[in-house]
């Protein structure tokens, strides 16, 4: 069953020393999904992303990318756009995009193929509307432009899954909105799978085709003490309607849904038992221990 999913996590736990950050994460994501992840700050959203990326290893559990468990370290299958430090400061914009096609080649071949690669890179640069800045250095661009370059840089590798860690977190609202429209457009055009971590609920609901809410506020689970030092779990999981314009953000429906997500994930006083999580998405599943199951009956 796990082979049908592009991304499959079962019973993933992550501890740093004594501190349990992620407790029992179960997640399956199909190809083509735009999966947004929200949760209270410090709940381990970015940790989860780093585990999927291979930047860190889970303490225990099963993590499959396209059915394969042997993708331990970062590799071209998984693209990444960070909030910062995504670009190489010593390369011009065009070279920053070309590097994804040049690095896999031995360097002498890279020299001969430069012309073809440059053409392709320019094509991607046009898609993020930055062709005229090809010969600038990253420090000469604004934050929003830099993130657009970072997206093009990751896109040219055609990754099976694109991971984004609060990519628009440092942008001003106007730029952020245009970046949101851009990423939706690119997602549709390239039929991408995106795993998008953000702390902005509106952004998550607006962008995603599926929203995952993580939280450390819940009842039950592996730890005996309730309320404190719990590892985060996925407490709710919904499929979302595809937004076609920014007007969607102003609708009542949108606002109500945000309220619901805020309550389910962000409210320390709203505690659901692990058996009552709001896992509505068709791909969501939960591996419960026998103790937890006993509560159900």
């Amino acid at each position, binding site marked *: 069953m796990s082979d049908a999913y592009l991304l499959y996590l079962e019973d993933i736990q992550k501890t740093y020393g004594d501190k349990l950050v992620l407790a029992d994460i179960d997640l399956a994501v199909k190809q083509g999904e735009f999966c947004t992840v929200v949760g209270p700050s410090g709940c381990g959203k970015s940790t989860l992303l780093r585990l999927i*990326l291979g*930047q860190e290893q889970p303490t225990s559990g099963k993590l499959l990318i396209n059915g394969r468990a042997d993708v331990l370290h*970062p*590799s071209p299958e998984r693209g*990444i756009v960070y909030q910062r*430090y995504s670009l190489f400061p*010593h390369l011009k914009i065009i070279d920053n995009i070309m*590097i994804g096609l040049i*690095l896999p080649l031995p360097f002498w071949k890279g020299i001969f193929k430069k012309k073809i690669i440059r053409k392709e890179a320019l094509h991607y640069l046009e898609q993020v509307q930055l062709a005229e800045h090809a010969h600038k250095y990253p420090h000469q661009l604004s934050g929003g432009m830099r993130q657009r370059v970072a997206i093009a840089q990751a896109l040219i590798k055609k990754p099976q899954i694109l991971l984004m860690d609060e990519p628009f977190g440092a942008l001003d609202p106007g730029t952020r909105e245009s970046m949101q429209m851009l990423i939706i457009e690119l997602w549709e055009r390239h039929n991408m799978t995106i795993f998008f971590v953000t702390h902005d609920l509106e952004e998550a609901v607006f962008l995603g085709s599926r929203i995952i809410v993580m939280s450390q506020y819940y009842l039950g689970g592996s730890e005996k003490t309730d309320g404190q030092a719990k590892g985060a779990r996925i407490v709710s999981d919904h499929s979302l309607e595809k937004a076609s314009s920014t007007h969607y953000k102003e609708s009542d429906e949108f606002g109500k849904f945000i309220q619901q997500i805020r309550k389910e994930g962000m409210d320390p006083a709203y505690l659901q038992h692990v058996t009552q999580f709001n896992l509505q998405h068709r791909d969501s599943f939960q591996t419960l221990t026998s103790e937890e199951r006993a509560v159900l009956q």
Partner: protein
Amino acid sequence: MKKDKTWFRGLHAAPPHWLRLLLAILPFMLLVAFYLTASHIRHTENPQDKLLPTITKMGNAIKKTAFTEDKRTGKYLLWSDTFSSLKRLLAGISMAAASGFLLGLNMGLLPGLRSMLLAFITFLANVPPLAILPILFISFGVGELGKIMLIFLGTFPLITRDIYLAVRKIPQNMIVKSLTLGASQAGVIYRVIMPQILPRLIETVRLSLGAAWLFLIASEAIASQSGLGYRIFLVRRYLSMDVIIVYVAWITLIAFSIDLILRKCITWVFPWYNPKMER
């Protein structure tokens, strides 16, 4: 109306261009004026004074060392001294730069190598190079190799450590990013991180050159048949302050020019490195 900007005093001073030039020249002028006055006073008391030679005497020293063939060797001393000193200096510092760069780069990125060598390099950096000069002269001889080795050993640990620290400052995200873009492990080190560290190497070399000159002149003073340091310590015996001052000024000029070239090299070759200086 009260003027809100001063030319010289305070945090908000905005000296115009001509004043900045003048201010830069001023300390030099003061030094020269002070020297000339002192020299003049001494010469009025004793026309044979050797301690603070006059400009004329120094001019003669230049003529003698730079533009007259030495009777004994048939060479123009200043130039042949400069040539043999620079040869040693550049050989030593470029060996140190190359090996320190490679080692620091790899230590910064490879945890295995780092565990093995970090403590050792730190230990090595604390050995006073001049104290082991006798060991170097005994093991490498008093010829060129001993001197080059002193410069090498004196600057290599420092360059290694500085490059190492610069590499460690590179965010882990960048390394992960390169891997997702298809870089091999060697590719990360030599095709992604190395080009970013190159300007830092030039800066490190700039700073290490001061130490390199020190080691060069020290080793030339102790055992040599040529070189700028050798000449200075040779003519000291005859109290030839004129030659000494000319040589010191010449060394300073060379050191200053090398530093300037390296600095310009950073702005020309690596325009991305110091974006603030560009503006």
